[in-house]
């Protein structure tokens, strides 16, 4: 299996659905609209000679200033063909939803939770879309590009009152 054969197979199976296909550094990258994500992923997973059975990676990216602003990136691995393919789904800021892949791969569960936690991308029909790495009462989504790097000021005796005055746990 190589990129040429795979892109042909995808084009035959989904003549209308795919936005673009390109090769970069030997890796096939398929951009597709979110409506078709589950169908394409299922096709890749279940077609006998493709067998991209392993969801290797799932993550969000924030392209601030670009439309659509977010992107969810999936890397699927075929063990029998020793080949990897990258799927990309654009997610607009106004409606940041993507269908979940947990129906196909339970491994998507935590990775989607992480993408939700970090970017605020909502995975529709995810069984438990909660924060995973950040505290549950955290406001905002830290890996978005418009969130600045936070700095925690070290509390010494001379400045601890000023620092603790801004902390939630002191007020509670």
């Amino acid at each position, binding site marked *: 299996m190589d990129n040429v054969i795979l892109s042909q197979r995808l084009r035959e199976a989904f003549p209308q659905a795919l936005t673009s296909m390109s090769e970069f550094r030997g890796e096939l990258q398929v951009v597709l609209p979110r409506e078709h994500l589950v169908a394409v992923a299922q096709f890749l997973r279940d077609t006998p000679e493709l067998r991209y059975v392993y969801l290797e990676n799932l*993550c969000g*990216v924030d392209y601030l200033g670009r439309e659509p602003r977010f992107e969810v990136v999936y890397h699927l691995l075929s063990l029998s063909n020793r080949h990897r393919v990258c799927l990309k789904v654009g997610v607009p800021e106004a409606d940041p939803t993507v269908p979940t892949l947990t129906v196909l791969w*339970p491994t998507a569960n935590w990775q989607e939770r992480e993408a939700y936690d970090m970017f605020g991308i909502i995975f529709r029909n995810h069984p438990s879309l909660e924060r995973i*790495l950040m505290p549950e009462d955290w406001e905002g989504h830290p890996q978005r590009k418009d969130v600045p790097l936070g700095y925690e000021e070290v509390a010494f005796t001379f400045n601890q009152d000023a620092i603790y005055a801004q902390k939630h746990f002191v007020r509670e």
Partner: protein
Amino acid sequence: MTTLTVPSPREITEPARSGNKETMVLNMGPHHPSTHGVLRLVLELDGEVVVNVAPDVGYLHTGIEKTMESKTYQKAVVLTDRTDYLAPLSNNLSYVLAVEKLLDCEIPVRVQTIRVLLTELTRIGSHLVWLGTHALDLAAMSVFLYAFREREEILDIFELVSGARMMTSYFRVGGLAYDLTDDFLPTVKHFLDHMSDHIDEYEDLLTRNPLWLERSVDVAPISAEDAIAYGLSGANLRACGVNLDMRKLIPYSGYETYDFDVPIGKNGDNYDRYLVRIAEMRQSLRIAQQAHQRLVDMGPGPYVTADRKIVPPPKHEITHSMESLIHHFKLWTEGFKVPRGDAYVGIESPRGILGTYLVSDGGPKPYRVHFRAPSFINLQALPHMARGRLVADLVALIASLDPVLGEVDR
């Protein structure tokens, strides 16, 4: 439609709060010696049997991916050490390979050989910590002491090349941080010569030990299909009989030129995971021996790429040429620029497939770095494997899955 699930803590605590359940909910961790870090498990227990368990992670989240976006490509290497702190060189390698893939630069064979040698030593060192702590959890104290005795030698080798025992940052984009020292090859040779005997020692203590067998054979098995669905990787997946090793599947750093086997288990239980990892240490020794021999044959050579867009000019040029000095200054203040695009590299770390997804906007800093952390993903299978088992088996299972919480939370 899949029936495999990963419960969240809320799914266990909320029904319990409503009070119409016969089971007991127990918090294990985050500060518990057998969770190997700050892992919190919410257990739903029926007597001593685990009905359900929900791992709760994030206690060690330090925003490494976010922080890396504000560092230049070369400076961000330092942060990769801190994810999987038992295998810093594997992390270095995964990240560095991703940047080099975007740069599309040529890496000298000698550098690749040194990288292979050191990552295989990392694998042995990491498996030694796993072996020691796993045995310690099952009350076999002496294995821990022996394993750490040998690990110390590996850390000494790391110290020899990089100056640091654990946070090595030795692999840099375009090559290595420094050249090897003169006593590196003899020290490695001494270690490689006697390590095989030490693995025999560990096996004498455990492999046919009736107590060990009772605690690990048929404990927490997982089928190959379920393991793939859960995205397990590394020894945890290979113990189920799936031959997935990135060094063979999609080779990098010249692994295709080395002669080694991929150990495969059958039942996917704790004992098979143990056997696979022990066999992996022997295979790593084999690879390291071949790499060592190649380095001896190769003699001295370059330790960085010849591409001056990435690495600064050598010292003797800097002291003689103004242009070289400026060049050096520019590289260390501004950094090199990486072509626009995104790339993914997956390597076989001691814990499984360690992937780096890197997006570049054409500037000197990474636009987005994402680590496909094997521990994070392996841990999802824990509830599936632990249900219906005793609490004591759960302790053994955590150790057997070998998560490193620094990598889980990043």
